[in-house]
């Protein structure tokens, strides 16, 4: 037994590259060795030198076949070592049943310079896994929590600590490796071996070794707190020479040029105990062989080694002996357990059977920079074009106009768009499921931790779920659990960047405030961490940059976690999942049952409705039938505009109507059916027996209960299941089933026949005292006529001819299949106006935006006028008397740049570039940007105005002794301004309209106000027209003012 343990250590220990052995010798030239302990992962070797293989090792063989190859170089350890085995090893046997953690193609995280890294490197080198290396434990753990990699390998003790600290972290039950550490002594030096063994035992007993180990293997923060101190012993006899290769943290390594480590300290303690000197010799190279043989040869007093697993190598143990194990190093896997979203898994099942959207030769529309954009890129090839739009609404508009074939977009907005436009719908199969998370700057790990902790708490206490359901739950959930800001003590402000055009995650709600799921969650997070929340609205593309350069602390905008984005920011734990769906051009209006032909129809798999859909609703052959496992799922897809109707039993339909508003069922049944069992024509015996039993069941209410279990009221349904009576039976009632039909007769999970028919037949058999045998059949009809079966369940596929061959029992159930569709709502223009402007005081987005626009225009004009006048004067002075050469030159460059580049770029450069790191109000940035731009044009206008003033005016002034400046100011400029007033006004008008691009930096100006309404109501036309009218009115007013002003100034002159 013990021998087999010894064997097991070999291979994995090798491949894990850990090795250390410390060898030492004593002065009298007797080299001894230390050897590394055992490894649970180790395999039996291909080496057949081993005379015996234990059962245990064989059981493990299969698990680690892949690791064998690289172990080929290593050899099985000798059995002589077995005596060095200690009891610890035995204890561990209980853990063995645990499965080996499958590391294949996973990413492993490790801390640099640890045993874990060495272990992981092996997997990396053989290409099985990727390895991420971190400098500190803290970042390692943080990234593990962030799912940067699948598992971390670290020392068991540390892993347990983190497991207790983070709820989502779990130590994998089976350890990754276990290494017993010992020293190697030259073979034959029994005296030293005994001495050292004795010392090790003492040190272990008195806890010295534990404290030495604890000083090294612990949290980063605690390392080195209680170092072993060499005892002050005056008389030391003899010297132990310890050879080491100092490249193995934490056993022997250089810490700031000082050789240190567990092995060194332990050996120091041993020497202190033995009253011997310790001499440490650093050996060159890193080969295990050289170490062992240095010890073995005795050519040096001693040798030290670093090479894990050498113990297992045969020929090493011919030259060295191992001391007792003084400590055991256990490496374990630390895993991050993700809370799986049940719903997602659930829906995946449903959608597995659906057809993928065929992207061939399609033009895909996306919003620039969104996940849809990225996905479209994946799907696009030479045949397919991707059209990128500034806004989702623009892409959808193109789809409505059939300019593109489909739009990849987030599910929620897709549903909203479909609601507003009858020509578009959502392709039933989800394109991808993604996770939303908040992002923070890479340099702000502390904040990330806080947010993650807060999110976890919110998740645990249900707040997160409440918030999300409040926006995207069922009809009765929406609005029922609004998040209430808590009254907590706060210090500091958390600046959250968002793009409030993405309902329901963030949008402009009542009174133009930014609301939505993300905002509520951020408020809840702020309540948790005790900070004030400040929301900054900006373009989606700008959010990551804002977080990166510190303009905002957190980005919260339904941001999908992607690898690309991870390179620039850190993401919190995901707080919800969302879907990317494909919007297609499809008339989503169903006004009558006839219109269902050619539509996308949802049915319950294998149900009468499914049958009806095939038979009655697909004359054109274009009808798309989607099968769901449950009615509720079908209903959900219907309300999400993924399917256009659901065909199901009237019971379900009527109930759905009660539960859900905005749905409508058509009075005409898609199909009507009565359900009875079939018997062979003329088989009166069975027929009367069964009918009699059915009558009885009807009388005693059993039938009703069974029916109620499938088609009753909600509270009845599923509550009853018929259980066969325990009774004596004689004879068998054989039932043949033509086709499964949910919920009448189908095979359940266990392969047993189930459903209403099965229940009824069980009850019938109980009445008749017969055994029941239900068999699925290829040809139930002939089974019946051949007499192979007594009763047939033939609900479907019967022709009249077939029916003539059969007799039917009493009808026990009849049902209608109805079609359920969305209610068609035709909104009047007034309703639309109401939606766009009155609901939630949306008009305020226009008025608030107008104020912003006017403020920016006004101040920018003022700034532009002052700067422009200054430039004009410099230029004029230069023109007239050749002075101010340098200033003039600067002005000319300025004019060239400003007039030669688009104002939008100037605005973006100023905001994202020049003011990127300072927190300047966006309005001020806009004023500066537009002022600078305007100044360039104003300057030229003024200059031309000055030039247009008669030269005689200036001469007359100068002749009176007035200085140039005085003449300019008092005589020329006033006249010039009058001349250029119309031109200046045109500049104001142009400026006013130019400010419409303020939205680029997230300012809520007039245009952005219109866009915000658009993004809320998904109405493209009305808000934009409204905004256009407002601009027009302002411009008309301005024009009027100038006309009046001009006239008045003219009057002044002509008085």
């Amino acid at each position: 037994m013990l021998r087999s343990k010894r064997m097991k250590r070999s291979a994995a220990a090798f491949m894990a590259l850990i090795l250390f052995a410390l060898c030492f010798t004593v002065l009298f030239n007797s080299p001894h060795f230390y050897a590394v302990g055992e490894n649970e992962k180790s395999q039996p070797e291909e080496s057949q030198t081993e005379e015996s293989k234990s059962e245990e090792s064989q059981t493990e063989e299969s698990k680690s076949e892949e690791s064998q190859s690289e172990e080929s170089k290593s050899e099985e350890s000798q059995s002589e070592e077995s005596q060095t085995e200690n009891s610890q090893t035995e204890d561990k046997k209980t853990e063995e049943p645990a499965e080996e953690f499958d590391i294949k193609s996973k990413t492993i995280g490790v801390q640099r310079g640890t045993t874990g890294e060495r272990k992981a490197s092996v997997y990396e080198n053989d290409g099985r896994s990727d390895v991420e290396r971190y400098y500190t434990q803290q970042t390692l753990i943080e990234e593990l929590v962030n799912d940067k990699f699948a598992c971390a390998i670290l020392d068991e003790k540390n892993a347990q600590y983190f497991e207790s600290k983070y709820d989502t972290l779990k130590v994998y039950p089976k350890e990754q490796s276990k290494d017993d550490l010992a020293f190697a002594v030259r073979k034959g030096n029994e005296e030293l071996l005994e001495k050292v063994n004795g010392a090790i035992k003492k040190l272990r007993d008195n806890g010295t070794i534990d404290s030495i180990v604890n000083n090294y293997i612990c949290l980063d923060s605690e390392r080195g707190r209680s170092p072993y101190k060499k005892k002050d012993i005056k008389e030391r006899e003899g010297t132990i020479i310890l050879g080491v290769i100092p490249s193995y943290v934490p056993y022997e390594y250089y810490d700031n040029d000082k050789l240190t480590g567990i092995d060194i300290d332990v050996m120091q303690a041993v020497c202190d105990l033995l009253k011997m000197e310790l001499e440490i010799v650093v050996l060159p190279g890193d080969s295990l062989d050289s170490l062992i043989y240095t010890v073995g040869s005795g050519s040096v007093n001693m040798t030290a080694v670093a090479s894990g697993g050498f113990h297992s190598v045969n020929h090493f143990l011919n030259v060295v002996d191992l001391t007792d194990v003084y400590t055991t190093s256990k490496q374990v896997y630390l895993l991050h357990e993700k809370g799986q979203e049940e719903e997602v898994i659930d829906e995946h099942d449903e959608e597995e059977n659906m057809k993928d959207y065929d992207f061939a030769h399609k033009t895909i529309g996306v919003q620039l920079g969104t996940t849809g954009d990225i996905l479209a890129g994946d799907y696009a090839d030479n045949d397919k074009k991707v059209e990128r739009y500034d806004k989702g609404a623009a892409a959808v508009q193109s789809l409505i106009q059939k300019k593109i074939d489909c739009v990849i977009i987030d599910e929620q907005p897709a549903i909203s768009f479909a609601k507003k436009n009858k020509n578009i719908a959502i392709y039933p199969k989800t394109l991808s499921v993604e996770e939303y998370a908040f992002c923070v700057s890479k340099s702000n790990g502390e904040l990330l931790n806080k947010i993650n902790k807060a999110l976890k708490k919110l998740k645990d206490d249900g707040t997160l779920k409440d918030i999300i359901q409040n926006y995207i739950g069922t009809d009765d959930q929406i609005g029922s659990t609004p998040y209430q800001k808590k009254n907590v003590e706060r210090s500091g402000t958390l600046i959250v960047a968002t793009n409030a055009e993405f309902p329901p995650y963030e949008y402009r709600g009542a009174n133009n405030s930014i609301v939505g799921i993300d905002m509520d969650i951020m408020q809840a997070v702020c309540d948790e961490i005790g900070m004030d929340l400040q929301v900054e609205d900006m373009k989606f593309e700008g959010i990551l940059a804002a977080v990166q350069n510190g303009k905002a602390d957190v980005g919260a905008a339904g941001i999908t976690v992607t690898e690309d984005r991870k390179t620039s920011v850190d993401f919190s734990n995901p707080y919800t999942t969302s879907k990317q769906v494909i919007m297609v051009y499809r008339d989503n209006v169903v006004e009558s049952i006839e219109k269902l032909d050619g539509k996308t129809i949802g049915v319950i798999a294998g149900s009468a409705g499914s049958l009806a859909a095939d038979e009655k609703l697909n004359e054109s052959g274009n009808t798309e039938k989607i099968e769901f496992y449950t009615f509720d799922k079908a209903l959900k897809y219907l309300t999400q505009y993924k399917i256009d109707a659901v065909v199901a039993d009237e019971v379900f339909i009527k109930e759905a109507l009660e539960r859900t508003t905005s749905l409508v069922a058509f009075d005409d049944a898609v199909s009507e059916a009565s359900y009875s069992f079939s018997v062979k024509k003329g088989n009166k015996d069975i027929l009367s027996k069964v009918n009699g039993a059915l009558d009885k069941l009807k009388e005693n209410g059993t039938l009703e209960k069974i029916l109620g279990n499938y088609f009753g009221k909600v509270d009845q349904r599923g509550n009853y299941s018929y259980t066969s009576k325990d009774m004596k039976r004689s004879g068998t009632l054989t039932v043949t089933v033509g086709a499964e039909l949910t919920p009448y007769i189908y095979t359940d999970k266990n392969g047993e026949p189930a459903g209403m028919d099965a229940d009824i037949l069980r009850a019938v058999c109980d009445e008749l005292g017969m055994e029941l045998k239900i068999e699925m059949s290829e040809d139930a009809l002939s089974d019946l006529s051949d007499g192979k079966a007594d009763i047939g369940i033939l609900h479907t596929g019967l022709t009249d001819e077939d029916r003539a061959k059969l007799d039917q029992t009493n009808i026990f159930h009849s049902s209608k299949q109805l079609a359920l569709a969305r209610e068609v709502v035709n909104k009047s223009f007034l309703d639309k106006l109401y939606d766009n402007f009155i609901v939630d005081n949306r008009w305020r987005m226009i008025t608030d935006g107008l104020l912003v626009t006017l403020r920016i225009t006004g101040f920018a004009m003022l700034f532009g006028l002052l700067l422009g006048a200054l430039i004009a004067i410099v230029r004029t002075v230069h023109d007239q008397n050749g002075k101010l050469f340098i200033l003039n030159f600067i002005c000319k460059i300025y004019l060239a740049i400003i007039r030669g580049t688009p104002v939008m770029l100037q605005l973006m450069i100023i905001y994202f570039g020049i003011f990127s790191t300072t927190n300047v109000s966006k309005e001020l940035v806009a004023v500066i940007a537009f002022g600078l731009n305007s100044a360039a044009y104003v300057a030229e206008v003024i200059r031309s105005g000055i030039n247009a003033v008669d030269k005689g005016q200036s001469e007359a002034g100068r002749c009176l002794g007035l200085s140039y400046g005085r003449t300019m100011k008092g005589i020329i400029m006033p006249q010039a301004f009058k001349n250029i007033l119309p031109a200046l006004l045109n500049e104001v008008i142009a400026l006013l309209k130019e400010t419409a691009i303020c939205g680029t930096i997230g300012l809520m100006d007039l245009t952005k106000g219109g866009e915000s309404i658009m993004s809320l109501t998904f109405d493209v036309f009305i808000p934009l027209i409204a905004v256009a009218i407002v601009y027009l009115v302002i411009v008309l007013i301005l024009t009027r003012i100038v006309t009046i002003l001009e006239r008045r100034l003219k009057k002044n002159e002509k008085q």
Partner: protein
Amino acid sequence: MKNSNNDVTEAVKDPETVTETGEMTEEEKAVNKREKISGEKPDDDAEVLIKVSGLKKKFGKHEVLRGITTSIKKGEVVAVIGPSGCGKSTFLRSLNLLETPTSGRILFEGINITDKKVNINKMREKMGMVFQQFNLFYNMTIKKNIMYAPVKLKKMTKEQASEKADELLKRIGLSDKANAYPDSLSGGQKQRIAIIRALAMNPDVMLFDEPTSALDPEMVGEVLSLIKDLAENGMTMVIVTHEMGFAKEVADRVLFINEGVIAEENTPEKFFGDPQNPRLKDFLSKVL
């Protein structure tokens, strides 16, 4: 007018002219010498208000003034006549440095105003100028036109200036136009306002640049009579004009400038009665 404006600009810009001003030509040195000599006899120059010597002006390559030397005594009225393009306007405009001379010097009240160190604005305060095109300030009322310079240059307080303006307006009988804007005035009225605007500064000399050329014939009289009035009150004046009769009547001396030089210079009687220069004879025969 426009042309001359442009010329001025060009002249200012032309680097050649600038350098030329800096260097002293042979002629100038000669003039300097003479001054030094005349300096020894101060009595001779006691009544000289403006002394022009070796004045040259080039517009680009075209030399408009080719060396003019003359002096104007206090109280003297000098009329300058000559064919168009002869340089008479340039000569006049050079006197208060509206045109920067290419070379030569101008002494005003004993100060060399061509010297760059001299504050020309201060000099101009004492040299009123009246333009052919009136050049009233169109953005100001008549009274403001008159008051603006004296007040801004701190020659008078607002009240004093207002009083002075009223007095001057009364003198020319345009008191009712005090608050009107220039555009509402007739040419003759504008020119008279222009004259009293210059007078408001109490100048030592008045320079008239064809003051009646832009006027309707019926308005010429009122302007000339005002100028005559000034002459009778002993104002020193240099008048560039085409009104030969007026020159004869008002001037103490008449200069005939031809091709950039003073071709003849005499009392009106001799000038008009017995012209010597053949070009002058020809000129007079055409205009009289």
